[in-house]
């Protein structure tokens, strides 16, 4: 029997049982849609995050943080470094600055504070940095949009754009010239004690966009490092950011090693490349996990197909008997049943990719349309990012292929049973 005839016969059989075939297909549609939607969103998110990191994270900088918690300890100051009582001091920059290929460095000392301005309050990080060094390192992002950044030790605060205007609707918390109070709760003493610090707003940064780990951010308040030391009552800093003379891998490796040696291996040094690699590997894991969950629904759909085909096999026993009596070979009977699965699988996969793509876009719109910022109430951490779902050819073809493969795999057993029916018994079947 010719392939075209096998398919047209299979198609006719499917058309006869539209509702049943439709429901079977729906199983595949849902499974594929789930996979496509989750992967498209997750890949879109990865692209967004990577882009934003790269835009704000100079590739010729290193981040030094206390403790040997591995690469993660360089991130956010909260991940690793536990177990060691080694402290990185603000003055340690002088040790780092002596190392070859180091251009300059700045300590970062940050605490979560409440910024009060009139009757408004915003919770965010207050970051002490060396304004002069920091603006040299991030000459394109640490730039005043209004006001002026002063390098004098008694300079005022520099506000990130989102701290000044957290809701992005003109409800200004504080702007240039305003006096604000920064309240920090010192939890190292008992009972915890609120420390208040009054400062004038010298400048508001231009909107930067992007997610920041060490680079300037829209959602923090900067104060000169010396004032931060006094205010927070400590000389210990969270990280030191190091500017290198070159961004080639050899320089990064050499300086990394030199810094680690200088501090007796009590610090960890991360580069932007390493962080990007970590992010990419984290995303791979997340994607695998999400795809795995979605694959379960596809598995269920596959079992549905098998179930339906076995029922259909019972119903069509006599038909199979007739086909065999008319001289159809067992392999043609097998091919007819497999073709039915291919048609259902392909149809389900095509519809599933479409539906998944639609869902991904709907979800991205909800996500981007202030969904996160609104949910967190205080606009402290929102940095306004937009996710554009990404559908790579690999995901597209993979999803189509997967849909067909799953239906075919689950059709193999029923199809094999159909092909093995003995004509005389099949014809006698009522």
């Amino acid at each position, binding site marked *: 029997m*010719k392939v075209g005839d096998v398919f047209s*016969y299979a198609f*006719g*059989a499917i058309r006869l049982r539209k509702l049943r075939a439709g429901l079977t297909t729906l199983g595949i549609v849902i499974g594929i849609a789930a996979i496509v939607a989750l992967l498209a969103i997750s890949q879109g998110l990865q692209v967004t995050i990577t882009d934003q990191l790269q835009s704000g994270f100079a590739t010729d900088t290193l981040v030094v943080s206390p403790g040997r918690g591995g690469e993660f300890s360089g991130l956010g100051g909260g991940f690793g470094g536990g177990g060691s009582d080694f402290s990185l001091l603000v003055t340690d920059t002088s040790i780092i600055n002596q190392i070859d290929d180091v251009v300059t460095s700045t300590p970062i000392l940050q605490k979560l504070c409440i910024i009060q301005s009139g009757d408004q309050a915003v919770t965010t990080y207050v970051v002490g940095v060396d304004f002069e060094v920091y603006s040299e390192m991030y000459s394109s992002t640490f730039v005043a949009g209004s006001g002026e950044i002063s390098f004098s030790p008694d300079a005022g605060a520099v506000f990130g754009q989102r701290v000044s205007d957290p809701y992005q609707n003109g409800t200004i918390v504080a702007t240039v010239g305003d006096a604000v109070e920064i309240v920090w709760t010192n939890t190292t003493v008992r009972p915890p004690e609120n420390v208040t610090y009054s400062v004038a707003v010298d400048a508001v940064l231009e909107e930067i966009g992007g997610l920041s780990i060490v680079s300037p951010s829209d959602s923090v308040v900067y104060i000169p490092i010396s004032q931060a030391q006094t205010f927070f009552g400590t000389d210990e800093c969270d990280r030191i950011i190091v500017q290198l003379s070159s961004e080639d891998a050899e320089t990064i490796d050499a300086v990394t090693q030199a810094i680690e040696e200088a501090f007796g291996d009590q610090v960890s040094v991360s580069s932007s490349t390493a962080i990007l690699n970590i992010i990419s590997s984290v995303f791979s894991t997340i994607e695998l996990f999400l795809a795995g969950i979605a694959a379960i629904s596809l598995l269920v759909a596959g079992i549905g197909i098998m179930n339906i085909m076995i029922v259909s096999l019972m119903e069509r026993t*006599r038909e199979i008997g007739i086909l065999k009596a*008319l*001289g159809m070979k067992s392999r043609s009977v097998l091919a007819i049943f497999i073709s039915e699965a291919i048609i259902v699988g392909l149809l389900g996969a095509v519809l599933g990719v479409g539906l998944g793509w639609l869902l991904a876009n709907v979800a991205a719109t909800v996500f981007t349309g202030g969904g996160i910022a609104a949910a967190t109430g205080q606009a402290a951490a929102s940095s306004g990012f937009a996710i554009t779902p990404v559908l790579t050819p690999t995901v597209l073809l993979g999803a189509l292929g997967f849909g067909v493969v799953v239906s075919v795999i689950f059709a193999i057993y029923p199809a094999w049973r159909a092909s093995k029916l003995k004509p*005389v018994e099949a014809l006698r079947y009522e």
Partner: protein
Amino acid sequence: MATPVVKTVGLKKTYMLGKVPVNALCGVNFKVDQGDFLTILGPSGSGKSTLLNMIGALDKPTQGQVLINGVDVSTLNDNQLADLRRSIGFVFQFFNLIPRLSARGNVELPLAIAGVNKAERRKRAEQLLTSVGLKDRMNHKPAELSGGERQRVAIARALANSPNFLLMDEPTGNIDSKTAKEIIGLIKKLNQEDGVTIIMITHDEKLANQAKRIMMMLDGAIVKEVDL
């Protein structure tokens, strides 16, 4: 002498009905030559349907041989059996048409199975349906046809691949006597005018008398053979 179209040698078939072995055929020897018209007559349970299944290569004998055009059926594998069945035209008591296919679709089916192309299939099916008197009913589905019309479709289908011989299992058993007469007329015409070899099962003696030869069966054995 020409090789007989069908020949059986010491054909035995035993099958299990639950735990009781039933001897459906106990040593059947007969042959059918080209152009013959044989009816097998016998009450139900006499083994005639079992015999027909053996000749049609739908079932395998427990013992003995079925030779079709001199080829021992038991030596053939699954694929060869399928090929062999294509050279045999079956007509069943309950028509066994595919309900979702039109009359033409049903006649085209064995041609599609044989790998004949679409245009040729269509031409042949239309020609066959016209010859059985269903020129105007070609696009009707079996459910829209009367019993007699369905059996004509079944006969047209059986003839599609120009078979060596036709096997008919009570072709008039499920239709009224008037239509049965017409069907028998058609079958006779096929044998006399087109030289089609026919083996037909029936338990209707009147019908059996239309053939060239009658073979009577009882309890799995041939009890009498009559040439008409």
